């Protein structure tokens, strides 16, 4: 798994070079209705945030909770990148987003290990059923 992550990092660099074609010019941005509008990004990120929460709050499968968290993280990342871009804040936002992505992956790895244990021990990954620890 470690190797996988390192590979992934290398691959990402390459892909990034290829996708440079889609980078926009100032004119493009000035002309775009949505892509040049911070509101639009914020609405998307907010919606993702709320959808993530909704998943966390409604789904009993513990994997959903994790997926919901991923959505929340992504919404935050989107914020970072959007703010960095529109506020001309530099690269900090993107760096943060990068860290978050890696951390989320690590988290997912642990989550899977734990969920596996839960499934073995409880025979279910229903988060409402793992309640042997309670008052």
């Amino acid at each position, binding site marked *: 798994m470690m190797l996988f992550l390192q590979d992934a990092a290398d691959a990402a660099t390459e892909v990034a070079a290829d996708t440079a074609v889609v980078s926009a010019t100032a004119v493009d941005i000035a002309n775009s209705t949505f892509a040049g509008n911070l509101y639009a990004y914020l609405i998307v990120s907010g919606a993702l945030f709320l959808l993530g*929460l909704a998943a*966390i*709050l409604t789904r*009993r499968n*513990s994997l959903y*909770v994790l997926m919901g968290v991923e959505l929340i993280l992504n919404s935050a990342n989107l914020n970072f990148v959007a703010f960095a871009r529109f506020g001309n804040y530099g690269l900090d936002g993107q760096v943060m987003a990068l860290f978050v992505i890696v951390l989320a992956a690590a988290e997912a790895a642990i989550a899977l290990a734990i969920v596996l244990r839960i499934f073995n021990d409880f025979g279910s990954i229903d*988060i*409402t059923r*793992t*309640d*042997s*620890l*309670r*008052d």
Partner: protein
Amino acid sequence: MAFEPQTLVTMALAIVLVPLLGAITQIFVGRKLPKGGDWLAQACIVTSAILSITLFVKLVAGPWDPNFAFHSVDHGLSWTWIKLFDVDITVGILFDNLSVTMLAMVTIIASCIFFFSAGYMKGDRYYSRFFAYLCYFCFAMLGLIVVDNLLFLFVFWELVGVGSYLLIGFFFYEETPPIAAMKAFMTNRVGDVLFMLGLVLAWQLTGTLSYREMFEVIASGAFPVAETAGGLETHAVYTWLGLTNHGMLTLSGILIFCGAISKSAQVPLHVWLPDAMAGPTPVSALIHAATMVAAGVFMVGRMYPFFTPDALAFIAGIGALTALVGATMGIVMWDIKKVLAYSTMSQLGYMMLALGVGGYTAGLFHLVTHAFFKACLFLGSGSVIHAVHSQDMRDMGGLKKKMPVTYWTFLIATLALAGVPCFAGYYSKDQIVATAMAWGMTHGAAAWTPFVFAAVGAFMTTFYMFRLIFLTFHGKPADEHKYSHAHESPAVMALPLVILAAFAIFAGGSINPLPHIEHLWFNELMPTPASAAAAGLGLDLHLDHFEHNVHAAHYPALVVSLLAIIIGFFMARAFYLKKSADAEAWRQRFGPVHTVVSNKYYFDEFYNGVIIGGLHKLNRSLYWFDRNIIDRIVNTVGLTVRFVAFIAGLFDKYVIDGLVNFWRWFTQSLSSIFRLIQTGNAQSYLTWTLVGVLVLAFVLAGN
């Protein structure tokens, strides 16, 4: 002065402490000594006796000075017991005619009784301990006599109480003696705390507790402490009570006298004395006839200048009542010792009466003479009891033949007690009646009561004493079996009887039936001291008038006394010797009265039922209160919680102990509620968290 002050003090200390030494030795090693160490105790008391008699001869009989007084304090011989900023208690030795005479009397009687006891108590399981207790008692009694200080008098006063407690309860392994002992001590305790209050008040009035200084301060009319005493309450209470210096002095006097009421078995605290007869007879003779009970009289005599006329009137009243009440009860008793006990009570009443009506000399004189003949009577009764192993007079009779020594000595003492002329008791008793009469003459109306009571009492005294003699020594033996085993007591018991009988005759110091009162030895030595209270308060006691009346009353009183004796004797003879009058019929005739009297006026019932019973009830309710109210009020938040708990019925078992449990219950309930959130369901945790986030956001966003 025959002795150096130093010597006198040494002798005084020896008199007091040698018996203590004997007591300590006896209690620790007595059992291991040959003959149980009785010789040691006897040696101790004889040492004291010899010293006392020496003192008596040298100090009293030698100079024959009515004003003789030796204060060791004057010679720098004193002991500072407690010295604080405002409390200075310095004790010294006070020898005057009264104390030296008392010393001699007590030691002589005690010596007799020590020897008598050696016979009487022979073979007892705790033989040596008995002597230890006796020694201890003597130590306390002698200490009481020689000190010059009211507080120390109080100290020894209590110690004689302890001696009495130990000795009454000597047969502690039996049912009644310990109870009687406790009763005696408790009754005395009641009087003693009042005494103590009186003492404290006196101390506050005068700033000292030394007799002489107290009298000086009072006589000077300056009550230093009383006037300067401030404090929140003092002022308010005194004002409220309207107490003046006069009033306070009277109050103090009465309170001090309360000590004597219990100690000298005056009504209404006399109930312990008859019960105290549960102790061994020598003890009754020494303590409950001759010495300790007389300590009350001694104390009143000592404090005589302190008492205001009002206080003295109170004393007289109590004394008169006691004289009569005691005598009436003496008539109806069957127990030989009880008769003597009530007789003692009655005689003590005479003494108090005498002191109260101004017959200082008469009262104290009677104290001395009475001590001898009453001791003799008790020892005689002890001899009888020893012989027949019973105390009930209905089991006796005809013992005159079997026990001649006992009989004759007993008879002599009886005559002395009845006040038959030429016997010691006559001189003192006659004076009492005369003084009482004079008091009546001086003050008129109600003031005649003491005299009347005294006269009636004199008649009764003769009656019950001869009733005793006739029933015991004359007539036919009631119980042949007991009679057959009866025998004269051994010499060690008989000799003391004889000695005491001799004193019963000669202690009056005269065998002239019509003496000039002033020339009786006692009157010469112990004239009535001037009343400090009257001097201080500026009261006129009309002493001249009173003196005159005493003279005037002398012969009328004598006649009355003699009449009473004669009537008493013949009535007793008629009822009990000749059986010409039917005692039973008379008893029926006086049915209700008899019932009341033979039930001792229901004093015991009153005390047991109302006071002690009430006390127990009170105690138990207070304890209930303590467990159920105080504990809970303090512990719980209050009754409300308890009430709610009761109503709810859910948690009243939790309210067993208040705060602890209430608090526990409270937090536990809250805990149970809080725990409901902790369901173990992670999703609900997340939900709650988000709710929390929302609330926080709202609170932070709100104004």
